[in-house]
């Protein structure tokens, strides 16, 4: 699977535009007009939302313009930077798979950590990446995971006195 740069440009501009619209909508709940005490709380955010919409629309137009004609008229491409170089895709299949393989475990770790605590989450994550991605032996991976947990525990709980989320298992063993 390959995603072209144009697709991504359009998707991003549509997304930022929707965020802009959402901000406009959200700020109407606070009042966007002029109250007795000056501008209402939504006044400033509403303007921001509008400017995001304008910027996103302009980016959309610019993208289509650049891709519609082979050589856009005027000096408009000077600022865009891409010029007439044949375009490379935003991301190709191999890269995308690599990226997903990197991101998914992180998401899984976050979800697990919310439930079991950060220490167990990070331990499982390090074990997984060492064993599966880096291809170390099980014992080495296990040792690395324990080492990471130990180092973080000492740094955060002892040195800087910043407690991290423990979760039910550590609490069961009396570690708060």
């Amino acid at each position, binding site marked *: 699977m390959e995603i072209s*740069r144009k697709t991504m440009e359009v998707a*991003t501009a549509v997304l*930022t535009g929707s*965020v802009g619209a*959402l*901000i406009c909508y*959200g*700020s109407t709940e*606070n009042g966007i007009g*002029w109250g007795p*005490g*000056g*501008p*209402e*709380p*939504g*006044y*400033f*955010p509403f303007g*921001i939302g509008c*400017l*995001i919409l*304008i*910027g*996103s629309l302009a*980016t959309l137009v610019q993208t289509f313009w650049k891709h519609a004609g082979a050589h856009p008229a*005027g*000096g408009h*491409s*000077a*600022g865009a*930077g891409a*010029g007439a170089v044949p375009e490379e895709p*935003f*991301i190709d299949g191999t*890269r995308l798979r*690599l*990226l997903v393989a*990197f991101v998914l475990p*992180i998401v899984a*770790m*976050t979800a697990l*950590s*919310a439930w079991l605590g*950060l220490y167990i989450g*990070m331990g499982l*994550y*390090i074990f997984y*990446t*060492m064993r599966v*991605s*880096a*291809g170390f032996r099980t014992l080495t991976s296990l040792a690395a995971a324990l080492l*990471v947990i130990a180092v*973080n525990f000492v740094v*955060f709980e002892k040195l800087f*006195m*910043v407690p*991290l*989320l423990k979760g039910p298992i550590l609490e069961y063993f009396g570690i708060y």
Partner: protein
Amino acid sequence: MGNFGQLMDGFVVALTVHHVMIMVIGVLLGLVVGVLPGLGAPNGVSLLLPLTFTMDPIAAIILLTSMYWGALFGGSTTSILFNIPGEPSSVATTFDGHPMAKQGEAVRALTLAFGSAGFGAMVGVVVITLLSGWVANFALQFGSPEYFAVYFMAFASFIGMAGGSPFKTLVCIMLGLAVGTVGMDTISGEGRLTFGITQLTNGISFLIVVIGLFGIGELLLTIDEGYKFDGVKAKLSLRVIVRTLAELPRYWVTLLRSALIGCWMGITPGGPTAASFMSYALGRRFSRRGKYFGKGEPEGIVAPETADHSAGSCALLPMLALGVPGSATAAVMMGGLMIWGLSPGPMLFTTRPDFVWGLIASMYLGNVIAVVLVLATVPIFAWILRAPFTVVGPLIAIVCLIGAYTVSNHMFDIWVALAFGLVGYVFKKLDYPLAPFVLAVVLGDKAEDAFRQSMLSSGGSLSVFFEGSLVATMMGIGILLLSLPLLTTLFGALFRRGDSTDAGQTSRP
């Protein structure tokens, strides 16, 4: 020379054993952060910031600024040895630094880089010493319209001077401002843009945004770009180092020109990255050996490095004196000042002179320590970087996630950071500038307050921004900067007829 006396007082503050120790630790941490791809100066400072909440503000700022120097220096090591910029601002160093290292002169390249970087940083610090008191005095006359005009100018210069699409810059600034407004409104106490999500009531911390955009985003980018080390071995020899340092004064024209570019780009929020590219481009154009640039030319290393570091240090001047940071990292530090209960800006010079001048004095020392340490640790970092990224990457990921958690001990923040990580990755690949985004998040509240207060005093009329001569001048400059892309397009179209090959050259380094 009132500043000189105060600077001496500052040295008394900075030169205690405790503070020098903190500088060494800060520089070392900074080197790690600068060397590892995926961890940069803004992100490193954000990760460290929650741990400094309990420290004394002077020690805390010395730690953070030392980390900043370390990160700036560390970024050049990887650029030269591995052709992988550890920091965006050291990309231009790879152009000549890596070729020179490949020709077997790695130590010469490193010494040239660090020597000129040290020179650039020193020029920057001297500029701060000379100008900051003056700027702060000047800024004492500012009312809220003037402050809004300063913020306006800062944002306008991003739109006007950035090489990329002005609309993308606009979107980034406004998204940043929007993130800044989420949560409780400081004036009315109403919750804004929370959409009923209770976790958003306290707002989104700029630290989370930076950890996401710069940390996780950069990490994803590194994976995407494929992480291969084609390293050059560097064996340190004291003789080569000394000989290269003696060679450095020969490039005094390049040094001075680059330092000036750096100072200018640092004070106006162009930032170190833009400064180093610009300095490299100008160096290539004006140097007699310009046509050798890109093949391992010494001046090609000196130019970007000097500008990078003078911009990096000068970026702290507007942060201290005006409360408007000149770079993403300075923005994070300014956020830190506010958390420590100090309000950056001209008043800081009168209320906490020990803090301001202690910090400035520590910059002199911190940079000297950084030059020495970075040279001494080259072999260690070269060794660390040989570890496969499948091991280093997850470790960096954990540091980022825990960093996001420690900001306010909420799991929700980790999810927000992950989301911003994806945004950062996509934005970076599509050339949306990230520095203005962060600046806007930090400045959002202040810009809005300034705007609302000016509107209150004028009864809702925008004319308040054009009444005084000072505020009108600043707004005028801002509007001029905003229209700069339009003007260059027009001029480009006019002159293109004559020479079609030259038009795009200035925007691309």
